[in-house]
């Protein structure tokens, strides 16, 4: 079970959280102006990163807040967590151990 550092509550076990998919996918402000291709990309196309991946989590059984995390998908190590709306922090290259 992962330990996830909620930016509001601190480190908690994974079972308190719900995964929210890729982070920083912005819903177009006026979807009617999106072309079919742009809308399809927004709806369906997601990264499948090997390495550092920005993803959303919700502290569903805690404070209820959505936040973002940088996770190395090859090791499951979290490099950072940060609040929704913030830009991803700059992180050093992933180390072999957390």
């Amino acid at each position, binding site marked *: *079970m*992962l*330990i996830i550092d909620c930016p509001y509550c601190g480190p908690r076990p994974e079972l308190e959280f*719900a995964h*929210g998919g890729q982070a920083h996918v912005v*819903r*177009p402000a*006026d*979807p*009617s102006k*999106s072309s*079919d291709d742009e*809308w399809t990309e*927004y*709806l*369906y196309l997601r990264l499948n990163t090997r390495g550092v991946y920005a993803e*959303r989590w*919700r502290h*569903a059984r805690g404070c*209820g*807040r*959505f936040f973002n995390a940088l996770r190395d998908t090859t*090791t*499951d190590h979290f490099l950072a967590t940060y609040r*929704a*709306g913030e830009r991803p922090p700059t992180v050093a290259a992933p180390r*072999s*151990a*957390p």
Partner: protein
Amino acid sequence: MSGLRTPAGGRVDRGRPLRFTFDGRAYTGFAGDTLASALLAHGVHLVGRSFKYHRPRGIVAAGSEEPNALVTVARDAARRTPNVRATQVELYDGLVAESQNRWPNLSFDVGAINNLLSPLIPAGFYNKTFMWPRKAWFALYEPQIRAAAGFGVAPAHADPDRYAQRFAHCDVLVVGAGPAGLAAALTAAAAGARVLLCDEQAEFGGALLDEHDAVIDGAPVAAWLAATVATLRTNPRVTLLPRTTAFGYFPHNNIGLAERVTDHLADPTPTQPRERLWQVRAREVVLAAGAIERPLVFPGNDRPGVMLASAARSYLHRYGVKVGTRAVVAAGCDAAFQAAVELAAAGVTIAVIADVRAPGSPPGPAEAAARAAGLAIEASATVLGASGRLRVAGVTLGRVGTDGSVTPGARHACDVLLMSGGYTPSVHLHSQSRGKLAFDETLGAFVPGAAAERTRSAGLARGAHGLATALDDGAAAGLAAAAASGHRGDSGPRHAVRALDGGVAGRAGALPQPAGPLPPAKAFVDFQHDVTTRDLALARREGFEAIEHIKRYTTTGMATDQGKTSGLNALGYVADESARAIPDVGLTTFRMPYTPVTFGLFAGVARGDLFDPVRRTPSHDWASARGAVFEDVGMWKRARFFPATGEDLHAAVDRECLAVRHRVGMFDASTLGKIEVVGKDAATFLNRLYVNNWANLGINRSRYGILLRDDGFVYDDGVIARLADDRFHVTTTTGGAARVFAMMEDYIQTEWTDLSVWITSTTEQWAVVAVQGPRARDVLAKLVTDVDLAPAALPHMAVARGRICGVPMLLFRVSFSGELGFEVNVAADYGAEVWAAIHAAGQEHGITPYGTEAMHVLRAEKGYIIVGQDTDGTMTPDDAAVAWAIGKTKPDFVGKRSLERATMKAAGRKQLVGLETVDPGIVLEEGAQVVAAPGQTPPMKMIGHVTSSYHSASLGRSIALGVVAGGRARLGETLYVPMPAGDIAVKVVGPVFYDREGARLNG
């Protein structure tokens, strides 16, 4: 006893004899024995039959790596544990054990015919033979194979034991209490770290328990061990967990430990759990899991009496048991010479030591000790075969020339053959933690490489052999782990050690054999799954080169022991045969659990009534007392119907439906999800989220809302009421409450941060009693105060606040039945009383409680959809015939853009329609397919399916809803529902069957 027990010595308590039975025969052992050591003390080697060929099998090892000696331990009919390793079963008085995989008995097993048929059962036999016809697999092949090849029998009764679970945190978790683990725990604890030390054995000490002559810090090994364990036990920062297997290494230093609490007790107290799961979160981990000795691979290496040299030492020194009287020792590792010397000293005749080490192996200290003891040693030897049916009786050796050729040698009579192919470090947990493995050329084995977690291996687990080295290595690892967890200390004085170190280097693969077209028969690599060198050769011949493929084709390493004794030998054999180096052959993945774990351990208390939380509605006890039949809806228990005496489901549902249509019914709707949406932007928020227009909804008015995902498909629905300018009461489907709430939070928190809006789940705060039927108003009028119930004052979809039975009430004039209807919302704590009061007040009107089944019939008669039943996540509002709800002038709402995509408007999409069977007595199967023409044979084009289907008492016929391609353009057409008994003709009609004008709503 048979004279195999030494007169003194060992760690058994000779003052405490214990009785036990094996296959019905009575034996005695001593406290401290395992089932294996006690049987060996009586000369019993034959303990089981093998998986595939039913070959007689004996005890190979002394620890958890044992591949053969799987037995059933039975306390009573419900407490029968199959497949436990006899080497790990601690003896208690009255223990009853049975062998497995044999009939009628161990010495004569009918299944052994498979051994004679073995040329017909090669690797891949199952894959190739039992492929067609598919039906035969389920009916014939699988049951037969399972019956013939299974191990043990599961108990016939539910497990009566308790299993506990707990979480633990520590600075340093040390896995393995051998010399390295003990030394690590000592230095880590001395540095101030909180230490948890676990070991799978009953006693701490690991390899130290098998030592006899070693001296540590001036004390005999046993004395040093006792003092060390006492030191740790008295340290309040240290938790000691014997009989506890670290079975799984999970991310972020989460380690699963299985503690066996009572299996070793003759009379467990009822208050004790049988096992305890520890979920440990460790800052730092030290893996000191030791190493496992490898068997040698030669023809007949599976005969009872052929065992690991280290096991013979363990049985001698720890249990005071000589495993035989005359031994041949096949030494592929210097350490095996030590076993020969020590067994000889205990009075076992050493017929010969066959030096089967790889050519060019350097002389070792144990070999020198054997020479000094005058034991016969045959150099450059190999083993060509072992004979003896139920027990090894002789060993034929061969001689390996400098050119690698093999010439047959002498046969040596014996009753045990001790073998050693060297030691394989136990890298299982390191590998489970995603740590890398590195091949150590000197050791000829994989050792831990770069770690992926905060973990380090110590001692034999990383190939650091020799007692002094292991102690030093463990001490350093403990110190480093403590420091990494924030506790600095020093290593203290180094331990002074006097011990023989035979090393761990050996050989992997098969021993040399005379050249031939095929590898010799019955040279076993994997004992537990009966995989031989011939099977591996066959797999390669059929084109399998990658070890993961060979593993799956031959099943080597896939038994419950996960290849502990076979893995490296399989790799070595394939490497030799394909002229590759072992690292180039690859490595299969180590998976949890390290040794098998009971289901009970994982289930813990989550069984029976505690398996899943149960949610009950306010009327539950009332309904239960009236004999209601309940159904599970998510975690909710909902009354499905209320049978009167003698009624079945259909009779009850017919009566309940007719009561609602003609008089009045009451229904507990409390399970509906309820979310209160509050804030100055609440209307804007709902406008952006739901398809409907909310801006023009008046206060104290409600509206049926549709929620889509952004992909345009119907996600949820429910009535939404406006209680104030800035306050909405949103209802959701029973199953959708949590996900709709999460979706709302997502948009509020991450997309529309400009909005001032808050949401609160109020599902469990409100009890909801639906009162439906032409006399609903008459019933409520007797109880409601402060609300004018007249149609003009409270029309359909109006909302009012007042009191019922004197308590505050939120009253909805809504209907999910098509009749005049109200939904009474009161605080949940008042729900039961208000329910009972409504029921009492309704007696003069014939009020009838109804359940979910009648609710479904009533709503289907009206064509009201159930999201998730009549929709399936691929339906647009138009498909579901609810497009009328869409606010046409809104610039955007979730899903709107997707509805503009061409495919969402394409002709031929499946649309909700009514389906009327031509024969009104036939009730269609929900889920049944719809086709255009009768008399077709599969495969046929399916153009739709039935989503809801009931008998309607009000209409005197069956009704159904379904989705059909281009359905609304097919009204009046006859379509067909193909069933095994023939096609059922159905007419496509509109989805509303009853009161099409909706007049009854406004009564």
